[in-house]
């Protein structure tokens, strides 16, 4: 319990340092158990959205990330974000640099569920756009042959360019059937309820759900290659009709 308490203190201290994220399309769930001490992680995430309405079609988001397992409970990452806004005639631009931190608060299997904490600070590289923070708990639970992962985040704009002062509530869930190492099917949900002091109708919130494939392979001395890819259906009018999302990751032991 002392270890868990000290990790909480570390997480809160980091939160104080890395206060609120650039609103980047970030379709992947984060596990409290993905920390490996002494391992370098190279990661790329991408999302491409499609919509019948041309004004909402064509949004893209890409990231390039490098992280390191400093110890058994802290994994920081630096991420470069690129986005293309929806609509015709848009171009892809660098949108921000994000400092991400995952803290493991419990050992896998030690308690009823595994608990972690996530905190990021996003520096906007787009003029007149606010910096931002995102933070919240990471929860994971094995049930039978499945692994359930839940993220609940609060996000806030910060700095002189913020266009609102509220906290944004978002969430992500992945339910994975652990079938084979190289391939396991999963279902994911991503939602954004908007500012918590003015949560509107469900139809006005972002809500996506869809199937995902998850797997990993050993790639010799390079380490381990992991992938996730899937198709998310927009379930509300505030969501694009469909989004393809992918994650590619190389874990290199030092």
């Amino acid at each position, binding site marked *: *319990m002392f270890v868990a308490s000290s990790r*909480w203190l570390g997480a809160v201290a980091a939160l104080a340092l890395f206060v609120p994220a650039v609103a980047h399309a970030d379709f992947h769930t984060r596990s409290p158990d993905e920390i490996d001490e002494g391992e370098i992680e190279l990661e790329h995430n991408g999302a491409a959205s499609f919509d019948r309405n041309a004004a909402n079609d064509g949004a893209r988001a890409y990231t390039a990330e490098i992280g390191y397992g400093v110890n058994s409970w802290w994994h920081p990452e630096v991420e470069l974000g690129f986005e293309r806004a929806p609509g015709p005639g848009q171009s892809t631009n660098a949108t921000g640099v994000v400092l991400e931190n995952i803290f493991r608060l419990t050992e896998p299997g030690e*308690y009823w569920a595994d*608990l972690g*904490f996530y905190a990021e600070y996003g520096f906007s590289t787009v003029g007149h756009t606010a910096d931002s923070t995102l933070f919240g708990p990471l929860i994971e639970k094995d049930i039978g042959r499945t692994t359930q992962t839940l993220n609940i985040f609060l996000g806030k704009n910060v700095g002189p360019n913020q266009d609102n002062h509220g906290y944004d509530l978002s969430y992500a869930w992945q339910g994975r059937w652990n079938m*084979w190492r190289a391939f396991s099917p999963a279902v994911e949900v991503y939602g954004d309820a908007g500012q918590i002091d003015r949560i509107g109708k469900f139809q006005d919130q972002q809500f996506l759900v869809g199937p995902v494939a998850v797997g990993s392979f050993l790639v010799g001395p390079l380490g381990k290659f992991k992938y996730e890819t899937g198709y998310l259906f927009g379930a509300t009018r505030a969501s694009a009709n469909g989004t393809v999302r992918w994650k590619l990751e190389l874990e290199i032991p030092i």
Partner: protein
Amino acid sequence: MRFILALSAALLVSGSAFADDVIHLSIKDHKYEPARLEVPAGVKFKLLVKNEDPTPEEFESFELKREKVVPPGQEIPVFLGPLDPGEYKFFGDFHQDTAQGVMVAK
């Protein structure tokens, strides 16, 4: 923040009982010792994995849903169970040709 604290407290206090004895497993010359490990069925237990090699290893088992790097010269805890009686394979991800083991839950 109150929600986060309440949630973590609820998760932390609701742990299951653990077996009294800690079980030890070591890695030497990229092999598990013992390669066949008896563990209690039906209860949670703590496994301590020590890496006596000068290179990192990853304790991994798809059946046990565990994957954890063991830095050289270090010992890490792995919490497992409750397991149904039976056999569960584990291996060292970075030396799969030699680091193979079986956990037998009785």
